[in-house]
């Protein structure tokens, strides 16, 4: 059987996430630290919900909040950032 990828960017499988949960991760950032799931190019935008579902087997999903939201919310070219106005 093929692998079941949860985090598509960092190629993290369901099994790896289950192991991280067994290792004590109870939050999305705990999973992220242990597996890199959510650290990829899309910054967890695709896998967040799937991991929340896995975590919610042992934790109230209301308490599973996304990791701190930080700019940039879209990938931005560094050259464009530095081209900006001087304020």
């Amino acid at each position, binding site marked *: *059987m*093929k*692998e*079941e*990828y*949860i985090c*598509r960017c960092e190629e993290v499988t*369901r099994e790896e996430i289950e192991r991280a949960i067994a290792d004590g991760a109870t939050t999305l950032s705990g999973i992220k630290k242990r597996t890199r799931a959510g650290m990829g190019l899309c910054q967890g*935008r*695709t*896998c967040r*919900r*799937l991991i*929340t579902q896995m975590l919610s087997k042992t934790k109230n*999903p*209301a308490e599973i*909040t*996304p990791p*701190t*939201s*930080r*700019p*940039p*919310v*879209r990938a*931005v*070219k560094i*050259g*464009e*950032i*530095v*081209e*900006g*106005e001087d*304020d």
Partner: protein
Amino acid sequence: MKTTEIAVIGAGPAGLSCAVEAARAGAKVTVLDENLKPGGQLFKQIHKFFGSREHKAGTRGFRIGEQLLSETEKLGVEVLLSSTVYGLYEDRLIAYIKDGKDNTLRAEKIVIATGASENALAFPGCTLPGVMGAGAAQTMINVNRVLPGKKVIMVGSGNVGLIVSYQLMQAGADVVALIEAAPKIGGYGVHAAKIRRAGVPIFVSTTIKEVLGEEMVEGVVTVELNEKWQPIEGTEREFEADTVCLAVGLSPLTELAWMAGCEFTFIPALGGHVPIHDKNMETTLPGIYVAGDITGVEEASSAMEEGRLAGVAAAESLGYIDAQKAEELKQQIWARLDALRTGPFGEGRFSAKLKQLNSRRLLA
């Protein structure tokens, strides 16, 4: 740094409706959208909308988009396209990239109308080329005019799954089957009936066991689920297919609201964590409003109403509409929203939205 009175992030149905209302009242409105074209998801909606006349029922989504655009133009709303908002900082400072440069915009009021994004689903083979979001397939056929594949398996029987299945056939593809993990069809029966007439079988209590193929999708093995949502051995079925579309729900795109520091509440019926807002669509942060799917996933019709509400409220707070007139307008919009949130499909959302409003009151 640019300044404006009302900045609207997202030029979808909610954002444009908001801009129209606020500009009509006289406010200076700037709409930002990362796409080349405004309209958000409206331009891939080629079916006729439900609702009543006030909700533009019977009109195809893309035409509603065209109408909204021409209204914003007439009213002189500034619509900044290809403008990627990447940050929302303290003191209502919006950072965005446009024309290959960094820009900032400070607004007196900000309306976040960023919509929602499709949920993913994991199964063996879910990363193979050919597995994609139903919305992705919809964009390809209706906006870009290319077929993602010829033989499609649709996963999910909500309105998105049903409608996209229909539209894939309109574009010339075959839908081999639609499968649904729940024991019943989630979307409107009339949408299901359309694709059944076209010969698409719908399998409830069924999920994907595996997608076949090494380099791309070649087939799909499904399996039936028991009452505990566990696969039943021996019920596997194999389909030949080159495309798998996932229509397993949407989640509000809330990052900018989190970043701004809005308080959230958890309401599964609305798609998870959603920003708390009051009856004016204002969040827990004064001057920051939300509208549309970001406040909880619904139909485009409700998104437009919420947008209008935010537009009226923001314009009122800036003094462009007097309290009495604003109250009148808001009453009308609330009534229209209530009309959309009735019946077996709407009740759940009605009580969910009520819960959302109550959490605002509890905080106050």
